[in-house]
């Protein structure tokens, strides 16, 4: 049964727990009292429209420099990580696949995929590329620079998650920029990650993506307003949010938040 997010309802066996997290930037509330839990071995979907705070939450969870929280706490595998650096979090087994991944002049795909790889062998790198439908013969020696298309770079970002095999991967809109023909492959890939030991926080603005999730949360205007089984989250989103999706800035979020009980 889904509903409003209250820290007391969050599972204590969660791999990731976020308690009352708030973040301001330039005097504006970006995240407001966010509570979230991701169970180990699950794919947890975080659904929200553009500008709802999804990526900001991802950066805050990863510890990015401009996203240090003003309040609240983050727990990972029963260790508080709120003030840890990105590197420290990564070494604990947390990582992030960026929505718009960085480009590196001079770094080859092979080098990039070897960074933080669980197994330092060429075969794992080749297998990861094949898993995202990129030919190792063509891509291993290419540079991770501007010459790659957005879709190619996104696939390489996903491949790097496969080689790292982290305990928790935050995937920020892995479906954006991917052509519809390969979208199914990406979904299959994400769905298989828990079998390889990687729990997934799947961030998306497309409610269809929740079909591969085990549980889900809905974020609106910096607050997680609903969590529960994916179908219930989709229904809540469909009935209250999708209608407003077309005109950003005009959504009556306060009403949604009141209905969700978090206003």
């Amino acid at each position, binding site marked *: 049964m889904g509903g409003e997010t209250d820290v007391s309802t969050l599972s204590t066996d969660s791999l990731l727990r976020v308690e009352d997290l708030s973040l301001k930037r330039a005097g504006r509330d970006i995240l407001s009292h966010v509570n979230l839990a991701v169970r180990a071995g699950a794919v947890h979907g975080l659904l929200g429209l553009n500008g709802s705070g999804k990526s900001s939450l991802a950066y805050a969870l990863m510890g990015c420099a401009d996203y240090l929280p003003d309040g609240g706490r983050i727990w990972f595998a029963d260790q508080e990580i709120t003030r840890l650096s990105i*590197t420290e979090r990564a070494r604990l087994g947390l990582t992030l696949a960026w929505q718009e991944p960085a480009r590196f002049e001079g770094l080859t795909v092979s080098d990039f995929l070897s*960074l*933080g790889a669980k197994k330092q062998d060429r075969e794992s790198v080749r297998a990861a590329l094949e898993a995202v439908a990129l030919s190792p013969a063509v891509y291993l020696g290419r540079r991770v620079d501007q010459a790659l298309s957005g879709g190619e770079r996104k696939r390489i970002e996903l491949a790097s998650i496969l080689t790292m095999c982290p305990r928790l991967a935050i995937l920020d809109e892995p479906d954006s920029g991917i052509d519809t023909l390969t979208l199914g492959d990406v979904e299959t890939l994400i769905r298989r990650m828990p079998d390889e030991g990687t729990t997934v926080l799947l961030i998306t603005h497309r409610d269809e993506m929740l079909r591969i999730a085990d549980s889900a949360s809905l974020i609106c205007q910096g607050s997680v307003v609903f969590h529960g089984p994916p179908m219930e989250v989709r229904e809540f989103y469909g009935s209250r949010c999708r209608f407003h999706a077309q005109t950003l800035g005009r959504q009556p979020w306060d009403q949604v938040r009141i209905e969700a009980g978090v206003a």
Partner: protein
Amino acid sequence: MKSAIHAGVIPAEPGWVKEYEAILNAYEQAGGNKAVLGATGTALLVVSANRVLASSEIPGVHFDAEELPNGVRARISIDPGSRFDRPVHLCFGMLPTEGLQEIHAEYVIGKGAAVEFLAHCTFPNALQLRHVMDATMRLEAGSSMHYTESHFHGPHGGIEVVPQARVIVAEGAQFLNTFSLVHGRVGRLSINYEVEVAAGGLAELTTKAYGWSDDQIQVNEIIHLNGEAARGLTKTRVAVRDRATSEIQTTAEGNAPLARGHMDCTEIVRDQAVAKNMPLVVVRDDRARVTHEAAIGTVSKKEMETLMARGLGEEEAVDLIIRGMLQ
């Protein structure tokens, strides 16, 4: 004094053999492959301080080296029309901590010849050392010369490197030059290249340097595009950190119809380091076109955070990004 060493002869005098080995070891430290130098059919010139330790010619490649009190004068010529499967290797260096090495080199690339030079300059122990490379390069019509110079300096920074070259690129010839100083401390680097390009010719100057501590990098490159449809490019990639400084001055002159020039400079600056770039565009023909672009800034935060999210520490991430740019 004329060198007594001739093609294919490796000196047998024990002291020199030891020095030769030490220079080659330093060369290997700089990323070179010693085995390549010993391979049959490889043209090779090895100079340590003012001694020519080895000189191995192959058909089409000629070395004429003369030892001077503080260095070597060398004439390196390539026969017209020659083509080679492998690069010509040049190895310059000094093992002592102090001293002066002056290399006066004259390169002549015969008409229609194509050659690649790999020059390795190794100064692993430098504390108070000056290395001057004073070169003239003449590329005859339709020839092609690719000259890659890689430096390996020790960790002390007590070295001054002064590479200067005047290059004449004849009609339809191509001159591609890459200078790289990214291993060990830069010390003080002062590059001065001036290139004249005739009709249909091409000159590309690529410079890469990575300075830290109190290193000083100065680059002054001038390309005169004198002939119709001559093309020129300067590409500079420099990173400075700590208190290091860099000053990049590039000039491209479009002096003839359809001449095309471009200057591209990217510099990364960290800590208290200072980076300057001064491109100068001169156009003397209304059908010529010369452009420039420059970007000086710190390491991209996103690139850094992406690498840190893979478990790299901040300094490791910065170093990897800089070395990637300098590759």
